[in-house]
C-alpha cells in the first residue's frame, strides 16, 4: 500500500480541502487525518456509520491523596512546573503537571501517586472505507504520539491489500509533522504564495528529505500573489522537485465546504485544477515504486 501524505506548513492553506478532493478522485478506500489538534476531514467525508472510539492515554500525571498528606510543602517547593496548588488541601493542577515524578519521589509519606490521563480519542470509521482519525483533548501535549497512533490504526485496519492510502497531515513544521512523514511513500506539499508559506515549505522539504521521502509541490490560491508563485516554481526547478500544479483562488471552494462537499463534486475552476494535480501526483507516486 502506497501512502500519500498531504502537508502544508501553517494552517489555512486548503490542505484538508485538497486531501478530501484526492480521496474522492482516487475513490480511496483507506485514509487518515493526522491533524489531531484540529481534525477537519471527517466534516467533509460524510461517514454513514458511527466511528469506533478508543481512548488514548498520555504520560501519567501526579495525584495527591489528601488523607495521607501531612502538608510538608516539599512537593510544592520542588515542582518545577508550578503544578502543585494549595487550597484547603495540596492538589495537582492536571494541566500544568508534566508527570515528571519529582513530587512522587520526594513526598515523605507516600501521599503522591501517578495515574494515567486521558489525552485524546482515536476514531476509526469502517463503512465503505477505512478512515482513521483522532482528537487530542484540550490542553494535552504529545500530539506527535497520537499522530503515530492514527497511522498505526489505519495500517492495522487495512488488512486486505489496497493500493493507496491518503493522509491529511498535521499543520506546522514541528514534531507532529515529523510523526506524519515517518513511513509514508510520498509527500505533497500545498504551498501558499506568501513569505511565510515559502519558508514553511522549505522546512518541510528538508524534513522530508531526511526521511528520503519523495516530495512534490503544488500551490493553492496561486493568483493571490503571482510573484511568490513564480518564486516557488523556480525553487522547485532549481532543486529538481516535481511541481504538480497551481490552484486558483475560487469562492466556490467555501461554498463546497459549507455544503459538506468536496471541490471536485462541483464544476468549478479550483476543482478542475485539483483534478490535474491529482493525476500528476498519482503518476509520481506510482512511478517511484517502479524505480
Amino acid at each position: 500500500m502506497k501512502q500519500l501524505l498531504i502537508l502544508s506548513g501553517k494552517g489555512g492553506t486548503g490542505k484538508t480541502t485538497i486531501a478530501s478532493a484526492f480521496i474522492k478522485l482516487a475513490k480511496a478506500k483507506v485514509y487518515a487525518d493526522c491533524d489531531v489538534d484540529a481534525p477537519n476531514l471527517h466534516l467533509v467525508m460524510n461517514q454513514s456509520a458511527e466511528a469506533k472510539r478508543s481512548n488514548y492515554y498520555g504520560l501519567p500525571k501526579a495525584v495527591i491523596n489528601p488523607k495521607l498528606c501531612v502538608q510538608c510543602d516539599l512537593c510544592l517547593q520542588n515542582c518545577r512546573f508550578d503544578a502543585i496548588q494549595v487550597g484547603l488541601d495540596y492538589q495537582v493542577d492536571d494541566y500544568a503537571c508534566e508527570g515528571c515524578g519529582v513530587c512522587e519521589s520526594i513526598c515523605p509519606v507516600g501521599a503522591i501517586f501517578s495515574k494515567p490521563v486521558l489525552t485524546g480519542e482515536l476514531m476509526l470509521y469502517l463503512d465503505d472505507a477505512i478512515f482513521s482519525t483522532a482528537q487530542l483533548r484540550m490542553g494535552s501535549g504529545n500530539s506527535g504520539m497520537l499522530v503515530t497512533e492514527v497511522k498505526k490504526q489505519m495500517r492495522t485496519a487495512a488488512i486486505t491489500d489496497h493500493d493507496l492510502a491518503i493522509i491529511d497531515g498535521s499543520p506546522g513544521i514541528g514534531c507532529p509533522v515529523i510523526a506524519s512523514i515517518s513511513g509514508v511513500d510520498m509527500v505533497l506539499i500545498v504551498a501558499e504564495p506568501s513569505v511565510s508559506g515559502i519558508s514553511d515549505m522549505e522546512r518541510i522539504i528538508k524534513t522530508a528529505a531526511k526521511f528520503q521521502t519523495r516530495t512534490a509541490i503544488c500551490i493553492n490560491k496561486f493568483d493571490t500573489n503571482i510573484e511568490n508563485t513564480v518564486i516557488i516554481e523556480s525553487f522547485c526547478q532549481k532543486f529538481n522537485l516535481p511541481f504538480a500544479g497551481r490552484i486558483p483562488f475560487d469562492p466556490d471552494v467555501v461554498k463546497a465546504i459549507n455544503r459538506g462537499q468536496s471541490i471536485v463534486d462541483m464544476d468549478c475552476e479550483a476543482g478542475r485544477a485539483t483534478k490535474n494535480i491529482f493525476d500528476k501526483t498519482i503518476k509520481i507516486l506510482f512511478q517511484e515504486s517502479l524505480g
Partner: protein
Amino acid sequence: MKIAIPVNDKSMEASVCDSFGRTPYYLIYDTESNESVFLDNSAVASQGGAGIKAAQTVVDNKVNALLTPRCGENAAEVIKAANIQLYKTINDSLKDNIDAFNEGKLSLLEEIHAGFHGHGGR
C-alpha cells in the same frame, strides 16, 4: 560478534521492524555461536525518548553492531558513543540481513533522521 536487530515477532522468521525505537522486540544474535535471544522493547510505550531507551537496551546487552532500517538522531548518538557499529538493513527479512552481515555486504547507516524530539511533552 553480537548483533542486535529490531523485529516484529519473537521468531527467526520474523520481519525486521521499521522503527528502531518503537519495535516490539529485539533479536540479539551471536554470529559465532548462532545463539539468538529475543528481548522485549521496554521503550515501545514511552511517551518520549523511546529511541534513547531502546538504544540503552542494546548498549546494555554489549552488542557490537546494530542492524536497522532507520535510526533517530538521539538513538544513533547513544549507539555511536558506545562504539557500536550501525548498519542499514537491505530488506525486511531477518535471515537475508544476517547473511548479508556475515558476508560483509551491509553498508553503514548514514542517514539519521531528526527524531521526534521527545514528542515535546507539551
